[in-house]
Structures are given as C-alpha cells and as structure tokens.
C-alpha cells in the first residue's frame, strides 16, 4: 500500500558527499525504527551499499545497523524522512531514476514484506 507515494516528488538533492531524497513508509501506521530491516536505494541502476545509507528524521541521523536497536524513535505515519546515499561526488544535473525499497518486520504478518517505489526525479543544474 502507498507504494507509489514512497518517494516524495521533487525532493532529490545532491552534494559532494552524496545525494538524498524524502521517503515515506509504505504502511497505514508508523513503525519503531528497530523494525525497519532494510532500506535499498539505486540511482540509475547503481545500488548503494547498505553501509552507505543514512536515515534522517527530526534532526537525528542513523545508519541502518544503528536503527536495528533504536527503540525510542519512530518513522511516523506519512512522515517524510530524508533518505541519504553517501556517494562521493553526488549525482550530476538532470533526470535520475531512483529506486527506493523498504523491508519491514511487521509483528502480525506471516511474512516480511518489501515494498518498492521507482520514480524519475530531476536535479537542477
């Protein structure tokens, strides 16, 4: 659910250290960060290694490994989190095909869902 609303339109930005965009949890509620099992990003087909992904919300930045033991913070319902890819040089100006997938551990489900959105986002020159 909400698959096609995960990537926030027009939110792509870049710097020397990498690129970032705003992402939302594809779910009808929020989740404690320890239940976010993985966030996978690709830019123009190139996958960003897990250790180079950062999750930033309300002034706090986490690695994915750190998030696994965060029990006092959440990714709230509909909340736009900054999803950061550490990639020296960032991305050049122009259109970029961004893929964003989230794997979450949902207590009542008999499986571990991964939900993905793909959008082409523009970077101004």
């Amino acid at each position, binding site marked *: 659910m*909400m*698959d096609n609303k995960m990537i926030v339109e027009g939110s792509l930005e870049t710097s020397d250290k990498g690129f970032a965009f705003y992402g939302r949890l594809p779910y009808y509620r929020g989740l404690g960060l320890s239940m976010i*099992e993985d966030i996978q990003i690709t830019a123009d087909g190139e996958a960003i290694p897990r250790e180079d992904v950062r999750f930033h919300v309300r002034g706090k930045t986490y690695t994915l490994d750190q998030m696994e033991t965060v029990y006092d913070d*959440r990714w*709230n*319902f*509909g909340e736009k989190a900054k999803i950061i890819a550490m990639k020296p040089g960032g991305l050049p100006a122009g259109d970029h095909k961004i893929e964003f997938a989230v794997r979450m551990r949902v*207590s009542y489900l008999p499986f571990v869902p991964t939900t993905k959105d793909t959008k082409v986002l523009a970077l101004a020159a």
Partner: protein
Amino acid sequence: MPIKRGVSLYSFQNETFQGKMTLEDCIRTCAEMGANGIEIIGEQTFWGWPEVGVDDAEIANWHSLIAKYDCVPVSHDFMLDYKRYKGREMPFAEQVASVKKDIEFGARLGMKFIRALVSIAPEVLVAAAPYAEEKGIKILIEVHAPLHFDHPWIIRHAEAFEKSGSDALGFLPDMGMFLHAFPPVWKEKFLRIGVPQNIADYIEKAYADRVLSEYVILNVQQMGGVGPAIGMAETLRHNAAFEPKRMLDYMPRIHNIHGKFYEMTADYVEPSIPYDEIVAVLKQGGYDGYICSEYEGNRWIEDAMEPDSVEQVRRQQVMLATLLGEPAPQLRAAA
C-alpha cells in the same frame, strides 16, 4: 438501544498519509455523515505513539475536536509489536506491560474499547484484563479473515476469556470474514498486473462456487498461471464466505464491529459483503454498539486512480443508515 454508526479513521488513510486531511477534517467529515462514533489506530492518528509517547496538548486537542463535532470516542486500535527486537520475541511480561500502556492511552482518549490484533496470545490479554477493568476499558480481539468464529485459535481466546471471569475481554469482528463474492476491485487490480482474463474469470467463478482454495490454486497452475495469477488464486487461502450468523453465539462479548468494505457502488451496494444479512444478524443478536466503517479498497485501486475515501465512506454510511432504518436525507448531499 439501536445500533450506532461510526467510522474508523483508517478509512481516510490515503488522504491523511498525504496530509490532504487533518484530524479535524476527518472528525468533521464523520459528523457530517451522522457517523458520530470515532475509531482510530493510535499510531496512525498520533505521531510518536507508542515508542515516543504523545503530549497532553495533543490529547486535549482530540477531546476538543470530539466535543466540537459532538462525536464519541469508540476504540483505540493498538498493535503490540512483539517482534520489536530482531531475532527474539518480546517477553511475556513486557507484552503485558505494553498492553497496559495502550489501555492507559485508550483511557486518556476517552475510548471505551481498545482493539487487539488477532495474533496476540490470549494469556497476554487475560493478564492485562484487571487493569482494563480498573480503567473502564474493554480489550477486544479483532476476529479477522482468515480467522473466524469457529477457528480453534478464536475458540481458545473465547475459552480463556470465559475462564478469566472478566467482562473486560471481548471480540471485535471484522466484516471482511463474510466475503460472499470475489471483490470486483480485487479482480480489476489482478487484471491490471497481468492475470489473463480467462484465469481471472475462473477464480471469480470458483470463489462463487465455494471451491476449496487448494484446488483453485492447482487448477490455475494447470491453466498456465504464474506470478500474479497464483497470487490471485492464493487470496482464497486468506478469505472465505463465512456465515454472519456465527456471530450469534458470541454476542455478549461483541462490543464493536469493523464495517470492512472494498468498494461501494454509486447505488450504495458493497458487491462482496452481504451487509443486509449482517445487519439482520446483529439486530437479531441484540447488538447495540457501533458499526465503524473501515474502507480498505484504497490499496486495491491506488495504482490506477486516487481513492476518494470520503465518498466511499459516505456511500457506506448511506447504506448502513438505510439498513438500520434511520432517516438519512442529509447523507445524500454531495460529499
């Protein structure tokens, strides 16, 4: 007392997720439909719940909106994330403590009920029941497809509730378990993602004929079905046309109803769930609580169009008002 109408704000998730409706918009919309019972999923409506907590100012705002629109808090649906820790289940005592936190949160919101997901063990709810009694809250386990009132897991809950002697434990049936026809919006979605027409037609017909899900899955495989076609056949494992009258044995413990629906047509019909029969059974059983609209068609159509959750809920409320014998002229105005 007559059966009352309400709405679970889950119904408006597509709009609230995108910030197109505020909490006030949701409550006002329900009040305008004469559906004054308000049910929420705590951690959908209130950012921060449960891990971070919710400020008193937020709770005060909730109460002022409820008062402003003359509504009634019905249920806080809680989740209990017993898989919070990777690789190990939350210990029993911590699960009970977590339920107590939700009881307290429900009480702060003025709720009569809190909803427990069906996967929670009965022992956890029984252990939390005395605190619920103290706070004037009932804990209702949601009986939701594929489970149903004759399933051993539900019977285990019922037995544990009786043995506990507590009247703070009960049931919240989700009407999706009475899925009497394959929902048209499901079929359309499966066609969009590539299920061949002949296979989709076969599955719809097999569902109408009440064919056992495992036979349908095998037949779809033999018809050459792969991927989404198997996925469509497998929905029959998780859904069935159980009988509304099975609720009658449990009436003394049924205190809230999820008016699940996938689609309301322009002439006020849910094509897959027999609400006429459901309301007749509830009346027969002397039910006097709320039926809260729970629109779940959103996720079946959002790939093709923006859901209009308000119009969908409005249509269901018109249907319910009619079935309940209420005059409902104000509902017929355009949303």
